[in-house]
């Protein structure tokens, strides 16, 4: 039964716009440009598109994208909730739809003007339903504050330090410095810059937080058979998973037995159960990095190290090119662009095509994850 999805579909095309703090185009136009670029990359006509998937936070809906790009009759469309937790699930939903015959050409996308547009946490009108009544009046206002709570406890329990978080920020920045499309391409990071940066929410400083970006990305998913006839080398969707753990509370996961083992653990169990390989066989990973502490938590959750070992895992250049597990090789949300993790999906495809600006030699397997700390998702890609 589970074998129905394994390698049944492939990502045949990827597309993106420029990334910047402020872009002149509308979100709708950026979405259309990214989708058309992905279809062109695949060599598939827009009229062949019959499936769409995006995030519930995406403000351009399927109707607008489909009619603008000239899609055909659409027979599957899906939106996934929980912000950046939905990124990989967009690919997963399309893979499931195509593998089961609901559609043949799927497009997943995310377009967002988070760089020049509003910060969601500043909205005081819609912010106070469950569970906001339990946190926001006390000044726990922003995602950085909510994750900072878990980060502080993680540091306390496991002896993690700011140097460990710096290791994460530095690995992402180093990769961005190799990627001309990255917002931080020409902006090296030093330990002194990190340690003297302004606080956002102690224990998290400026460089522990992702960028604010205008931009859009998309990818095209088709059957494995069809992908072999497309313009680019197919990148197979080997395994997909979503994860909403028992008694999980979203970003404010403070009210269960074990707040430090989050959705990554749930998604990982399902992901590996369906895969032909395990964490030791992953050549490169794109791990959702809205905040640096999500990396050690995810490293533990996806089984690259034991519980409480995620911070130590970052020591000695492990996350750099040439290390055990190079991560976020385009720069990630911390240093390439923050588009709710979609750039991590496209970067995973680039690695397995062999076209990344920070190519891991002979990379054949890549883990891509969505946001840890919210109901999440993940995909395993293979060449």
């Amino acid at each position: 039964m589970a074998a129905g999805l394994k390698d049944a579909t492939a990502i045949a095309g990827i597309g993106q716009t420029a990334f910047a703090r402020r872009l002149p185009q509308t979100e709708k136009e950026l979405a259309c440009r990214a989708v058309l670029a992905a279809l062109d990359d695949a060599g598939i006509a827009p009229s062949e598109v019959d499936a769409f998937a995006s995030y519930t936070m995406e403000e351009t809906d399927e109707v607008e994208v489909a009619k603008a790009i000239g899609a055909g009759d659409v027979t599957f469309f899906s939106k996934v909730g929980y912000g950046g937790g939905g990124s990989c699930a967009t690919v997963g939903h399309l893979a499931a739809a195509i593998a089961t015959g609901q559609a043949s050409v799927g497009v997943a996308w995310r377009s967002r003007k988070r760089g020049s547009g509003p910060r969601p946490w500043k909205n005081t009108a819609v912010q106070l339903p469950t569970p906001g009544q339990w946190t926001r009046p006390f000044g726990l206002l922003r995602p950085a504050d909510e994750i900072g709570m878990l980060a502080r406890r993680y540091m306390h329990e496991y002896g993690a330090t700011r140097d460990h978080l710096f290791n994460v920020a530095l690995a992402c920045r180093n990769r961005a410095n190799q990627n001309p499309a990255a917002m931080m391409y020409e902006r090296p990071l030093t330990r002194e810059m990190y340690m003297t940066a302004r606080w956002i929410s102690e224990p998290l400083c400026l460089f522990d937080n992702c960028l604010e970006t205008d931009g859009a990305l998309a990818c095209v998913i088709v059957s494995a058979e069809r992908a072999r006839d497309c313009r680019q080398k197919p990148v197979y969707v080997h395994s997909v998973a979503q994860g909403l753990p028992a008694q999980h509370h979203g970003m404010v996961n403070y009210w269960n037995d074990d707040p430090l083992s989050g959705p990554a653990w749930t998604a990982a169990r399902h992901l590996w159960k369906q895969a032909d390989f395990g964490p030791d066989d992953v050549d490169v990973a794109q791990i959702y990095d809205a905040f640096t502490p999500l990396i050690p938590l995810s490293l533990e959750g996806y089984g690259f190290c034991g519980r409480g070992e995620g911070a130590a895992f970052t020591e000695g250049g492990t996350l750099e090119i040439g290390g055990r597990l190079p991560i976020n090789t385009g720069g990630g949300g911390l240093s390439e662009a923050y588009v709710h993790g979609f750039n991590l999906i496209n970067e995973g495809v680039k690695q397995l095509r062999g076209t990344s600006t920070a190519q891991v030699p002979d990379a054949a397997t890549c883990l891509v994850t969505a946001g840890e700390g919210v109901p999440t998702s993940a995909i395993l890609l293979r060449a």
Partner: protein
Amino acid sequence: MTTATNTPDGTGTSGPAAAPAGTAPDGLLLPVPDEDGAPFWEYAARGELRIQACASESCGRLRFPPRPCCPHCGSFDGEWRRMSGRGRIWSYVRPHPPLLPAYAAQAPYNVILVELADAPRIRLAGNLVAAAGAPLNSVDPARLRIGAKVQVVFAEVGGTVVPRWLLERS
């Protein structure tokens, strides 16, 4: 059987919240309770810290945040159990700007998670203050420590009563 949720005014979970929606005159956000959460704030207005619990005799477990039924036994019979108000700091942050203006004016301030002595898996968000009505930044940050014992007090903010936390004298 009807829902056995006991609220101070006896109207059950459907009664109006004690707290008005929105924002205090000074700009601090006020809790906007949902139907499940309203009794917490109504009890807070009386100076009582109460947590929702299953009222089934064979279960009786505490749960937070409040919800219509017990995740352990499925019972819709609930009650609000009074807590001692004692706890320990489980974690904390110190937010710095950019923040909403009323919070930026007090930044950096503390937000703490208090693990309740009576319900160790329930960690209430709040603020450590020097006195019930003192500002969010009224405690020396050097005194913030995971594991520190704290005691609940109640403060009125723009007509709404919210819990605050004081360090226990050691």
